[in-house]
């Protein structure tokens, strides 16, 4: 079949995640590495996994800690596993966990591994704040200074402003444009109205709330027991009581005058971790696991960050579908990462546009038409939250579980990422 991965088929046999909590709330004292470890320990228990069966781990953190730059290794050194499991972090921004899963898929498909844990975590409560370059230089120079005189000379060059910390911005290094500004630009260029965005955000909250209430969304959540306080069991960004009127009152953040992107129709800064368990189809059978879904294909794409930054999915999805050998119409479920409502709606516009397909893809037919009954059926990142490193694994898990519940044959994932990148993956049930 066209583009189907060579080698063994890879199954998603399990997964779980921590609750996703708004930065600065319930999980603010849990470091990203501990969120990832927590998700993986729970995965081990829920999957009745024998740690010695695991061959490799790919666990990501988009903004890594300077203290543990390879978070994956800290996870694979959990005492539930033997100490010899190699582990790597990969960075494709918000699609990092997807890339971790894709690498796991490739390693298994090629026969280089049988069992892989892939996932990620992010603590946006705990982002690394750096000293200024001048201050860092001073510290380095001081450590090398040999005489008191040298030290005094160095210290005398110190200025209080050198202490001004440098916080990482969610901005494109290549253009200086922040994510929010990009989303704002896309809303304007594609004519996505404020009300449309707010409605989409409201939909995300309502569906996520329903999914949490009926237990489908909470089924993938492992509680976190913080050192102090109550056990954390649910995503705390999901609102059951928001109304369109309330959302309309929020002021645009990135363009106060003519803008439409607000805190309400964008994904919040979030803490959380998630992991999935991948196995070769034969391995799963041999170890007695019933696959939830199989990975059918995936694709990545990139575009000029100066263009519409978050349009990556519109380029990656058609390739993934081609590789899967199926048309959009065969998709029974679609999970799109919701960075911003304007970004989701812009991409959908592109998927459905013949003109766009002709112009940007050189295809005569549009990518596909979205069936709103099968899109983000339990909401998405706007309501649930978006811990950068965890989202890809969360979406894969949410989709796989729902595909099993509905017994859907094909499902699609799309994720936009910093740098003008897009990721898409097709899962299949049988």
């Amino acid at each position, binding site marked *: 079949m066209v583009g189907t991965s060579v080698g063994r088929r890879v199954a998603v046999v399990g997964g779980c995640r921590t609750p996703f909590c708004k930065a600065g709330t319930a999980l603010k004292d849990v470091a990203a590495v501990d969120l990832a470890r927590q998700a993986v320990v729970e995965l*081990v*228990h*829920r999957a009745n996994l*024998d740690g010695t069966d695991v061959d490799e781990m790919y666990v990501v953190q988009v903004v890594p800690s300077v203290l543990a730059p390879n978070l994956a290794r800290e996870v694979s050194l959990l*005492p*539930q596993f033997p100490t010899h499991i190699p582990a790597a972090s990969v960075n494709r921004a918000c699609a990092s966990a997807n890339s971790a899963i894709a690498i796991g898929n490739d390693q298994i498909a090629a026969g280089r591994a049988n069992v892989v844990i892939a996932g990620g975590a992010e603590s946006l409560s705990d982002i690394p704040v750096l000293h200024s370059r001048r201050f860092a230089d001073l510290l380095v120079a001081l450590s090398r200074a040999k005489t008191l005189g040298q030290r005094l000379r160095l210290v005398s060059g110190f200025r209080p402003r050198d202490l001004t910390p440098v916080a990482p911005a969610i901005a494109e290094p290549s253009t200086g444009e922040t994510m929010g500004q990009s989303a704002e630009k896309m809303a304007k260029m594609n004519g996505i109205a404020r009300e449309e965005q707010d409605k989409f955000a409201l939909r995300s909250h309502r569906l996520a709330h329903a999914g949490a209430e009926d237990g489908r969304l909470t089924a993938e959540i*492992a509680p976190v027991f913080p050192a102090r306080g109550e056990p954390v069991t649910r995503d705390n960004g999901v609102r059951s009581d928001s109304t369109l009127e309330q959302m309309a009152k929020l002021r645009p953040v990135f363009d106060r005058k003519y803008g439409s992107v607000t805190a309400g129709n964008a994904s919040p800064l979030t803490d959380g971790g998630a992991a999935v368990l991948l196995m070769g189809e034969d391995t799963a059978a041999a170890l007695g696991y019933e696959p939830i879904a199989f990975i059918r294909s995936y694709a990545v794409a990139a575009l000029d960050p100066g263009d519409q930054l978050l349009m990556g999915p519109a380029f990656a999805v058609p390739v993934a579908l081609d590789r899967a050998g199926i048309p959009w119409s065969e998709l029974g479920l679609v999970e799109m990462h919701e960075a911003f409502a304007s970004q989701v709606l812009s991409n959908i516009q592109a998927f459905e546009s013949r003109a766009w397909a002709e112009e940007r893809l050189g295809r005569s037919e549009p990518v596909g038409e979205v069936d709103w009954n099968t899109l983000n059926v339990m909401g998405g990142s706007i309501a649930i939250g978006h811990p950068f490193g965890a989202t890809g694994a969360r979406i894969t898990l949410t989709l796989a579980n729902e595909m099993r519940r509905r017994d859907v044959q094909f499902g699609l994932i799309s994720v936009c990422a910093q740098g003008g990148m897009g990721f898409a993956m097709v899962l299949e049930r049988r």
Partner: protein
Amino acid sequence: MSDRALTVDIVDGIAKVVLDLPGAAVNTINRSVRDELDALLDQLASDDGIQAAVLLSGKPGSFIAGADIDEFVALRSRDAAYQLVRDGQRLVNRIAESRTPVVAAIHGVCLGGGFEAALACAYRVATEDRSTKIGLPEVQIGILPAAGGCQRLPRLVGVSAALDMILAGKQLPAKRAFRAGMVDELVHPAVLERVAMEAARKLAGGWRPKRRSRSLRGAMIDGTSVGRRVAYSVSRKAVAKKTGGHYPAPLAALHAVEHGMTYGMEKGLEVEASYFAELAVGDVSRRLVEIFFATTALKKDPGVPAPSPDPRPVRNLGIVGSGFMGAGIGGVAVTHAGVDVRFQDTDLERVGAGLANAQGIVQERLKRRRITKHDARRLLSLLSGGTDWQGFGRADLVVEAVFEDLAVKHDVVRQLEACVRDDCIIASNTSTIPIRSIAEVATHPGRLVGMHFFSPVHKMPLLEVIVTETTEPWVTVSAVAFGRKMGKTVIVVGDHPGFWVNRILAPYLNEAGRLLAEGESVESIDRAMTKWGFPVGPITLLDEVGLDVAHKASHVLQQAFGDRLSPMPGLTRMTSEGRLGRKTGRGFYRYEGGKKRAVDLAIYEIINAPSESTVPKEDVTRRLVYAMLNESARAVDEGVVRSPRDGDIGAVFGIGFPPFRGGPLRYLDAHGAAAAVETLRTLAEKYGDRFEPAPRLLRMAEDDAPFYPTT
């Protein structure tokens, strides 16, 4: 293999001496080693080709574990003991005075006589390794360091630090021993020999190693006679408080140190030797050595008669019920056995509380520097839990610690059997319900066993493994092995009401209650037993155990054995008022901020006690002690424990029965069954039938037979 312990290799004028006692796992110093060392010292004195020597061990993880304990146990007279220790002193002095300097290269345990030999060396290099432990633990078996340890250690590290080490019988890890100045250098095991050889070469060339000077505070205490006198007096008071006058060894060691520091090494050695001779053949040391041997033997006892199956490893532990007990078991399983622990309880708040308690046990070890920050992080990741049975499919052993109710336990067993593997052991931590009753509903009753931990689990050293008639041998040996891995002293006990510890404890606590009801004060009852050597009195113990728990246990025993074991009057009234002991902040005593305060006078009214007691003081002690002794004899007769050894160990480690008395059965043996029968008859006449001597005691009195076979 040669039958000699020492091999000497001369490399460039340095004698490399390797001690490797043939046929032993660890090096100890016995007669033949002493003879060989003597010969070596002759050679060092006469052979001009040898400029220095290095003493190494050929055993992994053991430099020298101490003097040969069998030789010590075989001592029958004071004179023989004196001769033995003088011999040892002479040998160690020869090392110290050798004109050829000797370097000790220490890897592994370096204890007692082994450390005393090292102390006599000119230089000590130790490895920075987990296996390296250094100390003078002699007082723990009722004797004192008598090969110069009480002389050379204070001269090396100062009086106060030395007393600290010797009086408590401490064993220090290498790093702390180095910091205390007990060794001169700390190195990686891979370079130990090289560094020691190099040091020997330098010493031969006239190098005098510089020892660190003491801190100002150290200099003021250890460096002046007034300071030292203060140190002796402080230590003397501390020892008196700690031993209650029951253990002579620490005080003897203190005198030996003081005498030697005041009148010189030679006089000190004489004092060391004469104290040793007296203590070595004394009762206290004999009892402590017996307990040492019993626990050592228990460590090797698989728990079932030969041929015993191999224990199956426990890597994943499930715990049902994350209350204080379950959490304690989980915490210790993590800190000591490093297993993956999964809790299950009915709601997440309970699971969270249990996890927090278990984490607390890990944190406490971190605070006491028993583990590093990195260890703690690893261990904490082993604790998890939920409200469902996820993860229990991985379990090799599940311990249930749910509410003491048979229906609840049955429900747990049914649910567990639906989710665990067929080869998973199911253990109950019940203290009152027969294991066979719990096993009634099991599809595989052979895998059910009792694991009766004591509270608080991280502090109480005993574990009773309860076996029923259907418990399969592999289950017993696996439970025993795992309990041992958790750091517990494990005894295997039959499935009889109250098992062993609670069985012999109940009549003792009941008797305390009777005395209260007869007008005896809480303090006088507690004092009687602490004076007799218990760490706490029975009333304090009741408060610690929890009055509800004691009441429940007592009730079960009364049902099984009738009025002999009827609970103390007034206990029901105490519990119905919510006075459950320490955990509720009030029992017989009041508790504030976790600290025991005064007796709560209100209890006398609740108990409805007369204001004066007519019980003579000596009867208070006798009634309490003999209630326990008599019940021990009955329980042994019924086969509750496999041997008197297990019974005594259970009483010492489970109840705090005074170790210097050896345990209830040793105590009965020491005083003779006939005397015990007579005392019991007197008590029965005065205080009631419950003191009727146990049939076993009557038989023993008639046959003049002890519990322990005489050797």
